């Protein structure tokens, strides 16, 4: 696998799996605005995944659906952070903000890439991600301002911190530490990153559910 393919699949898998996880809030978020927000964010992330899979598919001579749905669980390149399931609200917001902060750093780097195709897609994705970051930061500010919510958010951030570090490569990781510490106004603990390449048990369950229609109608489902 080329480095480029590996990079594109890591990005695509992160967006697809997180898009799926975000969509799990559709209908059951704490209030209607968040039903709408998480559903819309999920739709964006899956749109980004599609574009990236199409790019990868051209390199390996297949199609986007085959990459999204037909690989074995161990072939996915997603970061364990996006695989975690059914988080309660504080952990959902913690993951959302940690992921969007890491993703912003990654996209900024890609926009500067010599690979014009990848730089173009990254720039287009980033225009949409601005709104995800606004939403995530609004929630962080809201939870930090509440005596009841702040300890729960802090606990969630501590728990997910090693996972957040695992989203980025070594060279970009210090910038994540800097941005997170700046926003929270405190130092984060040193932690061993939970890196890409290992998977949470919940991933297999997610793939089972996500690929059900695909497996039951390999020639294409008709509605």
């Amino acid at each position, binding site marked *: 696998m080329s480095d480029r393919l590996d990079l594109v699949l890591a990005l695509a898998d992160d967006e697809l799996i997180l898009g799926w996880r975000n969509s799990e809030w559709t209908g059951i978020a704490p209030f209607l605005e968040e039903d709408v927000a998480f559903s819309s964010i999920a*739709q964006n992330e899956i*749109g*980004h995944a599609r574009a990236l899979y199409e790019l990868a598919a051209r390199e390996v001579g297949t199609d986007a659906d085959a990459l999204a749905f037909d690989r074995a669980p161990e072939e996915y390149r997603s970061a364990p952070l996006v695989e975690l399931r059914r988080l309660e609200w504080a952990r959902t917001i913690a993951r959302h903000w940690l992921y969007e902060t890491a993703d912003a750093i990654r996209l900024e780097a890609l926009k500067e890439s010599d690979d014009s195709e990848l730089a173009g897609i990254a720039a287009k994705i980033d225009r949409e991600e601005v709104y995800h970051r606004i939403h995530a930061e609004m929630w962080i500010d809201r939870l930090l301002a509440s005596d009841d919510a702040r300890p729960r958010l802090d606990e969630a951030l501590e728990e997910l911190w090693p996972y957040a570090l695992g989203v980025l490569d070594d060279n970009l990781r210090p910038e994540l530490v800097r941005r997170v510490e700046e926003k929270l106004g405190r130092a984060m603990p040193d932690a061993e990153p939970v890196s890409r390449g290992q998977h949470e048990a919940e991933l297999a369950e997610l793939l089972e559910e996500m690929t059900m229609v695909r497996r039951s109608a390999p020639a294409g489902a008709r509605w």
Partner: protein
Amino acid sequence: MSAADNACVESTQAGLAGEVWRALAEILDPEIPVISIVDLGVVKDVRIEDETVYVEFTPTFMGCPALESMKAQMEDAIRALGAEPEVVVVLDDSWSTDRISPAGREKLRAAGFAPPAPRSAGTPTLIQLECGPFRCPWCGSTDTRLDNVFGPTPCRSLRYCNACRQPFEQFKTI
């Protein structure tokens, strides 16, 4: 081929390109069927080579489910002109809401969607979305508030007008 023949081919191609642009201007955004895809600025270029009409097309939001439908409608419209279509989807930074034409912005407003603010103000921020002078498409008041950054489709936010007490959809600036 003589110079005269060349000129003739070029003028026929220019004629066909004009017809294609006019046909594409009849295709409405499936999700906001008051504005055409040309007014929306998503058709970047129409180019004719040999017998094929190449259309460069940039989606607004990448997860937009209307993308396939727009593509199919463009292909049908070009075939109806007796030409072979090739719609090329371009994914780069070249589309922004600034590409929506003035006529398109007015059509959005008339249909109750507040048109996007210009990008010149820079990358949108929460402060800007909460405090900016967003105008209600119903009564024209700027006494409006942000209800939700996200809305019924990726391209829209939800706002509320304190003056006429109506909710409205604000086209996001991207």
